[in-house]
């Protein structure tokens, strides 16, 4: 027995020695999780500073149009249109070949993103979570809370408006769901969806300040809400939704998810009214104006690139700075963003007349004459033009030159917007404009024209043109000519800002899509100190457009969601 006690003690001692006294626990206490730094919901809403971080993540859900591997498989939305070619070898260019089961990373727009912090649906969820919980924060005033909630609402409306542009009417999400909630949410009709978005924007605009101080730059303002309303209503008034017949028959068309069901001119009026409301507020409160210092080229650059320029009404700041990781010069140079001659040819001469290769003077000096630029200044900021200042030297886009795209099927040009001179943008703080002030002006002009008040439209178009040093448009155009002139002005102003894609779809421009099967490039040869130009019809693998289908005006809803059978009716043709 003595022996037994002796050894029991020895055993205990050894056990304690081995396991370390502080860790020695028995029962449930032993099974506790080790410390970690995870935060709970209560902690997140215990202080203003944490709550603001939640809202910052909501802002982060705003999309960027620049190329990243996270979106559309490195491609640009412009590359689906006539403006650009994503002709880097090895890029999976399957736009138009996508199906309802194509993975989200290869789609031009992702609604459902499992990553949790990007994509419309997760942005909306995060916004609602903020709205539902911010009242718990002790160290924020009620008005602060209301303003922040209104910001979150505009972000919900922004995502919803994007879904509207890509899919039509979608289920209206009005709170953050729990997994146990009933998900039997039907799609809304296009009409109801537009009204829901507009309703949310009106509510937010009533609370938001017209503008914010520089320390809050990047935040949503009343101006953002009102400008977004113009965009949504203009899109809804466009023929894709507002027409005598649907763009394609199908269940979603029958249920009016993808159009209004008729044509009503009043929808253009509603868009115009929203635009005029903005103009009224602007004249009362000021602040927002086009960047216009008298140096058109620098002004145009500052207009889309600089933070706090009072022209950008809402922007995305996905990244901190421009770096090679997501906005890779290497990708550009290998042909991800090769501008087409179709885009370049849209830019008029500096005097406002159209450019034409049939004009011998134009053909001999398409870009510079005696070293002086001959075209709309915006061309030189949108596309890298041979012989222009670039990367601290002259651009060499001719065959064999440094900037000659090595693999592209489109020789002669590459994108300059956002990249600028390839050097000075790197390391600069990032901003991608989602709505700029000119959009409001050009939208008003478009609505006026559709309401047969074209004569009043020129004022608004010319405001935009003047900033770039361009003369006013020749007046007296008929309705169709003016409409095309406005769509063209959109290209000159917004190339690489994701407008063209939506313009083509909302105006059902299958004719322009058809041209993308035969896009052109320009072969520039250096002969001595001068250049010769040869227009080349290039081979592009956009085989889709040989058999263009109107189903491409709206994207397919992911099959997995349709298959859950809760009311996600597939868009026509998919």
């Amino acid at each position: 027995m003595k022996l037994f006690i002796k050894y029991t003690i020895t055993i205990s001692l050894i056990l304690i020695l081995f396991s370390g006294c502080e860790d020695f626990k028995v029962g449930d206490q032993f099974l506790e999780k080790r410390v970690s730094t995870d935060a709970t919901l209560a902690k997140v809403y215990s202080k203003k500073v944490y709550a603001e971080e939640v809202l910052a993540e909501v802002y982060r859900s705003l999309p960027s149009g620049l190329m990243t591997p996270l979106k559309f498989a490195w491609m640009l939305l412009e590359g689906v249109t006539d403006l650009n070619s994503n002709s880097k070898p090895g890029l999976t260019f399957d736009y138009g070949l996508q199906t309802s089961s194509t993975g989200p990373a290869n789609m031009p727009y992702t609604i459902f993103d499992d990553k949790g912090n990007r994509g419309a649906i997760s942005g909306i969820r995060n916004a609602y979570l903020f709205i539902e919980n911010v009242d718990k924060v002790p160290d924020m005033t009620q008005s602060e809370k209301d303003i922040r909630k209104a910001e979150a609402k505009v972000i919900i409306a922004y995502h919803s408006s994007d879904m509207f542009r890509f899919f039509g009417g979608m289920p209206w999400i009005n709170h953050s769901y729990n997994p146990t909630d009933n998900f039997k949410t039907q799609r809304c009709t296009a009409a109801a969806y537009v009204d829901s978005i507009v309703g949310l924007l009106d509510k937010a605009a009533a609370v938001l300040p017209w503008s914010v101080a520089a320390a809050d730059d990047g935040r949503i303002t009343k101006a953002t809400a009102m400008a977004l309303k113009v965009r949504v209503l203009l899109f809804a008034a466009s023929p894709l939704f507002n027409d005598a017949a649907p763009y394609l028959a199908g269940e979603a068309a029958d249920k009016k998810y993808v159009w209004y069901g008729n044509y009503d001119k009043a929808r253009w009026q509603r868009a115009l009214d929203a635009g005029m409301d903005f103009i009224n507020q602007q004249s009362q409160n000021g602040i927002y104006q086009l960047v216009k210092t008298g140096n058109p080229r620098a002004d145009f650059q500052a207009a889309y690139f600089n933070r706090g320029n009072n022209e950008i009404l809402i922007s995305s700041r996905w990244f901190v700075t421009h770096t090679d990781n997501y906005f890779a010069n290497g990708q550009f140079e290998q042909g991800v963003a090769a501008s087409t001659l179709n885009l370049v040819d849209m830019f008029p001469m500096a005097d406002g007349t159209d450019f034409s290769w049939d004009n011998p003077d134009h053909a001999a000096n398409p870009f510079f004459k005696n070293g002086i630029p001959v075209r709309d200044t915006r061309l030189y900021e949108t596309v890298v033009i041979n012989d222009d200042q670039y990367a601290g030297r002259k651009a060499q886009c001719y065959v064999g030159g440094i900037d000659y795209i090595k693999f592209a099927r489109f020789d002669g040009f590459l994108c300059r917007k956002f990249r600028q001179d390839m050097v000075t943008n790197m390391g600069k703080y990032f901003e991608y404009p989602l709505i700029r002030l000119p959009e409001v002006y050009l939208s008003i002009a478009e609505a006026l024209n559709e309401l047969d008040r074209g004569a009043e439209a020129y004022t608004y178009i010319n405001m935009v043109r003047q900033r770039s040093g361009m003369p006013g448009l020749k007046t007296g155009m008929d309705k169709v000519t003016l409409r095309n002139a406005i769509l063209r002005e959109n290209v000159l102003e917004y190339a690489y800002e994701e407008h063209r894609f939506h313009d083509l779809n909302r105006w059902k421009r299958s004719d322009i899509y058809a041209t993308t099967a035969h896009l052109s490039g320009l072969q520039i040869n250096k002969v001595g100190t001068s250049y010769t130009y040869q227009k080349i019809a290039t081979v592009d693998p956009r085989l889709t457009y040989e058999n263009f289908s109107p189903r491409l005006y709206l994207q397919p809803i992911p099959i997995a969601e349709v298959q859950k059978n809760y009311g996600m009716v597939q868009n026509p043709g998919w």
Partner: protein
Amino acid sequence: MNKIIYLLSFVLGLTLTANAQIKISGKVSDQGGQPIRGALIQEVGTSSNNTISKEDGTFVLQTTKVNMIDVVLADAKRKRVLANGDGELKIVMDESDVIENMGHASVTSSRQTQALTTVTSDEILKNSSVSVSDAILGLLPLNFRGNSSALVVVDGFPRDWTYLAKEEIESVTVLKDALATALWGARGANGVICVTTKRGSYNSKKISVSYVHGIGLPTNIPQMADASSYANAVNEALTNDGLPVRYSPTDITNFTSATADPDLYPNVNWLKQAFRDHTENNQLNLTFQGGGNRIRYFSLINYKNDFGILNPKYTEYDGRFSTQKRSYGLNIRTNLDIDVTKTTLVKFTLLGKLSQGNGPYSTDASIFNNLVGIPSAAFPVFTQSGLWGSNNLFSTNPIANIASTGYGMSNGQMFQSDIRIIQNLSMLVNGLSAEASVSYDNNATYAESQSKNYAYQVNTPVVNSSTGIITKNSAQRGNESALAFTTSLANQFITSAIEGKVLYDRTFGANSLVASAIVRQETIFPLGRNTTRKRQYFVGTAGYDFQGRYLLDLVINQYGTSLLSEGDKFRTYPAISAGWVISKESFFNSKALDLLKLRASWGKSGYDGNLQYELDRQYWVGGSGYTLQDGNVSAGGSTREGTLPVDYVTPETGEKLNLGFDLKAFKKLTIVGDAFYERRSNILVSGNGVISKAIGITVPSICTGINDIKGYEISATWNEDTRPFKYYVQGNFSFAETKVIENNEGFVAYDYLSKKGRAVGQFYGLQAIGYFNDLADITNSPAQKFSIVKPGDVKYKDQNNDGKIDQNDVVASGYSTALPEIYYGMKLGFEYKGFGVDVLLQGITNYSQVLNTPSVYWPLQNNTNISNWYLNDNIRWTDATKATANLPRLSTINNANNFQNSTQWRVDGSYFSLRNLNVYYNLPQSLTKKIGIANCQVYARANNLFTTYQYEKFDVGNPALTSILMGLKFNF
């Protein structure tokens, strides 16, 4: 107390002979009749009354009553016999006495009602595989009973076993049914592999030295197309795509011409360049096994090295470092058993392991993908000017990727230890003992690497448009950079466990009772956050048998894990089993039949291996930040919601039923058969099927999945020893069928899309029904919109007749791609006058595989390569081969249509392999004795000498090796 026992004994029909002295004498020997020295003979219930067998195997033990005695040999074999003092006991220790270790408990086959399979050191050592796990793989089906990822236990504690040397292993037992796996609670349901290391025996000494030299021959390396075949294939593909061809007829001739400039017309067999024809490895092993009266030891020093497969011409290219894939390992083990007093045994188990590895800085995946993916016509290894070759399209030179990107080195240090103290308490209560044990393992790997960039040259042909003469334009790209040094603690984990156990083991005449109570705590503490796992067991076991004829066992495990929710950490796993040894019944009278036992068990065990802490609670985690300020200001912090919690977190539950029999006849035949059924419930399945993604965050999983697994296993062994000739033959067969009962898949549009009722991992895909003959065929067939379809593309069956091919046309075919249903094998061998041969054959069937390796099976698209498999071994679709083609047309474009998951790429995954061949010769002892060696063996072994595949899928990653070993072994 005595009264009660007396009463009990009376009831149980026992006669007590109080205080009489009984002298038990006997002799212990092995099957071959050789006496066994150093076996421990102890009285059951009063194990402090014991003795040790002498050199001639004899022993004498005094007791006071008729009782059972246990004969224990080096903790590896145990036999329980009735000793009544009448005459000399003849005790033969054979394989039915092997201790089958289950971690907290052990059993021998005569008492066993569990479903277990055990292999012992003899069999493991015969195997030609260098690593233990590979050796075991051939001997036991590790993905047994429809499950994978079994728990591995070494000497009673969950541990990694890949580092062990074969020479240190005594036995490996696989726990299969509920009674065995319930001991391991929610770690046991996928099966448990219990490894027991060797220990010493009393009063003996054995020193063994062995040296093995091995070579490994790469097998199963894909053959990629040579330059001209590649160029022809690319041209064919471009023509198919309606694009201009890339190589002119002159180009193609130049690829085979000796005079053409190799910078422009290379023809490189990258795989051949990269690998040498064999690897070499050496193993030196030294073991000391034995003991005295009170101390027993087993000690091992094992040194292994392996000189890799890469071509030394390139691995030493840089001069400053080698990138050869090399590994070195040193195991030092000491297992000590000390009888501190007559009643106290202390067991130490210590293993230290040092290992080192070296290799290129580039990852294996990058090396292999480039070797396979870069066409032989792309560029030369070195250009004429001595720089690495490359071109703009591929940029990585597969050889420079091995030779010139730097090196990586790993340095592993591991220490494993446990101590177990066993105190006999028969002075308090007869048959009682207590055990306490602690384990502590620490394993760390340090990594060091130096990386660099290399300069390469790009050569492009320039054709003079007037003369047609081709010159080359050379440009250097990239730069040689300095070596960038990094070092890190690549991985570290600490595991520790502590266990207390009280055991009651007694016989009352013909009745035996074994009962135990176990408390155990385990901690696994790896690097990183939220990775620590803690587990706690409260186990009760009880076993009863009557005359070894009727057997009954019970296990109850109250098991807790830190992974479960607060206040809900414990689950109960009960199991019960019964055995009936019919051959011991008096009515059973057969000379031929030595044993017939029926076994049945039912119970539960669980699996918590795939649970995570995050499952049951909501956390908020840091986002990537966002800037809300004017000008050049970096991002402010942001916070976002983590994954949503699972509604009710619980481990997978396996409810297992097992029916088995053991049969022995003619002293030579052994047949073991088992049939099993398992219902696996609470499987964590995705909620995606029923919850809309409109929730806006990753849909949480739910613990509601159910699978059924049923099957049977049978093995028959014939073992005959008519010395000098002895031989054995064993055949085994196992079948396991899995079936999904509930998977939360939600709504499916068509019945055939449902995965319910199908095997786990069942292959699903479109049904390929040939190739489109021509444009008319395409027009007249259901629309396939995965990509633009042309003649020669795969044509699929429209299962739902809706006129289009999409995900609704996916059907089940073939078998599971996860696990084969059938494993079968054969072991045979003989020995004659010291010369012997052992053969191990193994096969699997009812298994599907998918061929999807780019370049090898999926050629050319996205600038990949093409293999001879595609070009020569099969018939691809062309205009001329329409009728016989079994592969689609070539295409350079991303051809999504052809590369859908479909029966086109599904193949039969069956194989049959000569896994192991062992030929040996034991030198005559008359000869070896003269030079003081007990015995000496020379042997040659080979593994995977041949394998017949139904379809040979090339291994991606390291090439598979056939290894051939030559060894020499001395025992002193």
